């Protein structure tokens, strides 16, 4: 320690510094140098341990990428199910190893393509799925017992899950064979992504119904993808992303327990979803801290006995909000570094953004480059040879420790506010996020934070010359026609019977999943199923703040 003090006084401090910001992108102050002194209170076995063992700081599988690479899982969907089915086959052919479905806004919000509120929105930011028939066509020629699928869907997750399971069974798979994930994380919707439908209490009931159903019937299904990605995209810092995500996770654990489930029945199938932003080391520390925090709370606070309940498995997406519309090819570089962070952080699954996403949904060329980025990291950089290669770095461990401490401080604040739901009601998360977003924007405008191509290193005469993806303008009309045909072809009495049974179930305390599956098989549309539930549960309205 004396040596560092001496080094600092004699060598470092007298030198002039560049006119630059030496904080992390989240605004965290950093020392110029880290030494063993920074890790004096650490205990290897207690704080790091071994991969696949508590507290899992170094990874959740004993052999990590030596055993199996992360799943290369590109979030994808646009236009009609035929358009998207074609894109899925393209991506699989290029070497992706898992599917990930992006739905359009009407589907996300529980509305059919012929709903008046859907006008102009059908197939625009994702694929339009109105019924089991659409789902059948979405996965046409793709055997669901041979691949896992993640579906980014929240309010209507129960419906899309039902559609998927029905398609799997129609293809000849058993429910035990089907593997995948539904995002199904309603708390972060109220906080950040804003694609809610129902108010909190009925939303949590639907979620606990899904937990109970899947733990018994669909054991390979990840029932929630507890997400920080959207919280970060909305403008939070890395510390907030970590803390708020973990807090949401704990809230779901408590909800499951309150619903009468044993924690080890459902916790092993919780998964997580983090952002990978551009501050390289901060992100790696965040992922490692997340694993340790989850393990400690699950074992010590919630008394989970199954080690799988202590393991935080996660998917990562590189940061959409970091991409620039200016000089878009630079986004390939940003995405590559962000992907590497995720891998050095031990992610189980990864989506890499395409360079053109500030302008449109990914073109074939752009998404191929994004996928190749993962493959180059996997096979050319040597990053997968050694497990948790940055462990022991004075800086990385100090930052990991600091992030855990800050998360714990946030947990205490949330508890003081009465828990996650109460904090949402009080606008706590929303305000933290809005303040962080504004602060970041101010830093950029004052030139305190550099974004290449945007506020420095600009090309003022730049003209875009990329071929962007265009959504077929006939999509909406075709989808409406398809719906009209479906409504006349199916059995109206079956539809009515199924929806009525669902309504009654919703008013009581039946598990909704079998009833929704029944509706799905009768070709009730998503809108009809959600409208039925809306009739019972009502709609959520947020308090406006900015």
């Amino acid at each position, binding site marked *: 320690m004396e040596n560092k003090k001496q080094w600092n006084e004699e060598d470092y401090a007298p030198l002039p510094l560049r006119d630059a910001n030496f904080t992390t992108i989240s605004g965290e102050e950093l020392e110029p140098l880290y030494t063993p002194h920074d890790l004096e209170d650490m205990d290897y076995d207690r704080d790091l341990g071994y991969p696949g063992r508590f507290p899992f700081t170094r990874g959740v599988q004993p052999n990590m990428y030596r055993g199996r690479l992360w799943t290369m899982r590109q979030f994808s969907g646009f236009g009609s199910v035929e358009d998207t089915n074609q894109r899925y086959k393209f991506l699989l052919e290029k070497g992706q190893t898992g599917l990930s479905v992006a739905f359009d*806004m009407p589907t996300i919000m529980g509305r059919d393509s012929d709903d008046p509120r*859907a006008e*102009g929105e059908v197939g625009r*930011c994702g694929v339009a799925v109105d019924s089991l028939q659409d789902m059948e066509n979405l996965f046409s020629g793709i055997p669901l017992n041979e691949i896992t699928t993640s579906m980014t869907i929240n309010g209507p997750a129960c419906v899309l899950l039902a559609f998927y399971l029905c398609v799997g069974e129609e293809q000849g798979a058993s429910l035990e064979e089907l593997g995948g994930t539904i995002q199904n994380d309603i708390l972060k919707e109220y906080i950040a992504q804003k694609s809610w439908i129902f108010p909190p209490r009925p939303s949590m009931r639907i979620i606990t119904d899904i937990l109970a159903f899947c733990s018994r019937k669909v054991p390979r299904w990840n029932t929630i993808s507890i997400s920080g990605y959207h919280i970060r995209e909305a403008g939070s810092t890395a510390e907030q992303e970590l803390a708020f995500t973990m807090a949401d996770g704990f809230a779901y654990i408590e909800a499951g327990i309150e619903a009468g489930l044993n924690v080890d029945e459902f916790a092993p199938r919780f998964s997580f979803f983090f952002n990978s932003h551009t501050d390289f080391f901060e992100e790696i520390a965040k992922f490692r801290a997340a694993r340790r925090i989850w393990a400690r709370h699950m074992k010590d606070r919630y008394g989970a006995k199954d080690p799988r309940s202590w393991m935080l498995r996660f998917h990562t997406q590189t940061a959409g909000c970091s991409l620039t519309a200016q000089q878009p090819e630079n986004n390939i570089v940003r995405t590559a570094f962000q992907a590497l962070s995720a891998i050095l952080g031990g992610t189980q699954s990864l989506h890499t953004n395409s360079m053109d996403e*500030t302008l449109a949904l990914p073109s074939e060329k752009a998404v191929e480059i994004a996928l190749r980025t993962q493959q180059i990291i996997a096979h050319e950089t040597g990053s997968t040879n050694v497990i948790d290669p940055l462990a022991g770095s004075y800086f990385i461990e100090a930052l990991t420790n600091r992030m855990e401490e800050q998360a714990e401080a946030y947990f205490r604040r949330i508890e003081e506010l009465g828990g996650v739901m109460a904090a949402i009601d009080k606008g706590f998360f929303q305000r933290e996020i809005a303040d962080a*977003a504004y602060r970041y924007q101010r830093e950029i405008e004052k030139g305190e934070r550099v974004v290449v191509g945007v506020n420095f290193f600009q090309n003022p005469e730049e003209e875009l010359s990329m071929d962007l993806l265009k*959504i077929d303008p006939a999509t909406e009309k075709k989808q409406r026609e398809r719906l009209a045909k479906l409504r006349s072809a199916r059995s109206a009495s079956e539809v009515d019977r199924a929806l009525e049974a669902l309504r009654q179930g919703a008013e009581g305390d039946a598990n909704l999943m079998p009833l929704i599956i029944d509706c799905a098989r009768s070709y009730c549309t998503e809108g009809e199923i959600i409208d039925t539930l809306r009739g019972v549960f009502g709609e959520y309205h947020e308090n*406006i703040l900015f």
Partner: protein
Amino acid sequence: MTRTARILIAKPGLDGHDRGAKVVARGLADAGYEVIYTGLHQTPEQIAEAAVQEDVNAVGLSILSGAHMTLFPRVLELLKEKGAEDIMVFGGGIIPPADIEALSTQGVAAIFTPGTPISAIVSFLDDIVPSRL
């Protein structure tokens, strides 16, 4: 007599991405405008109605869902129907250059793409709307 210029920032359609709208709303408020933020999931009808009720000088639409070619024209149309053509319409979001051109032809005064500093939006509004106090 000059009055403080009033701006409506709106989120039309089903899109829930509100980071940009909120940052712009706050930035414009800090710059001295009176800002009304509609919140999410507004129909074009609700937006046009609010614009007239709140007697704003300009309406800023934020659209990241790809539905801009339906929603911008609809808002323009409704403002015209209400005899409120003097309310200027601008916006931002995920909008490719070809569509920006098309919207401009239809009467959208400006589209601010990702990376636009708030100061640019303030300058633009300062030029376009009546003087601020």
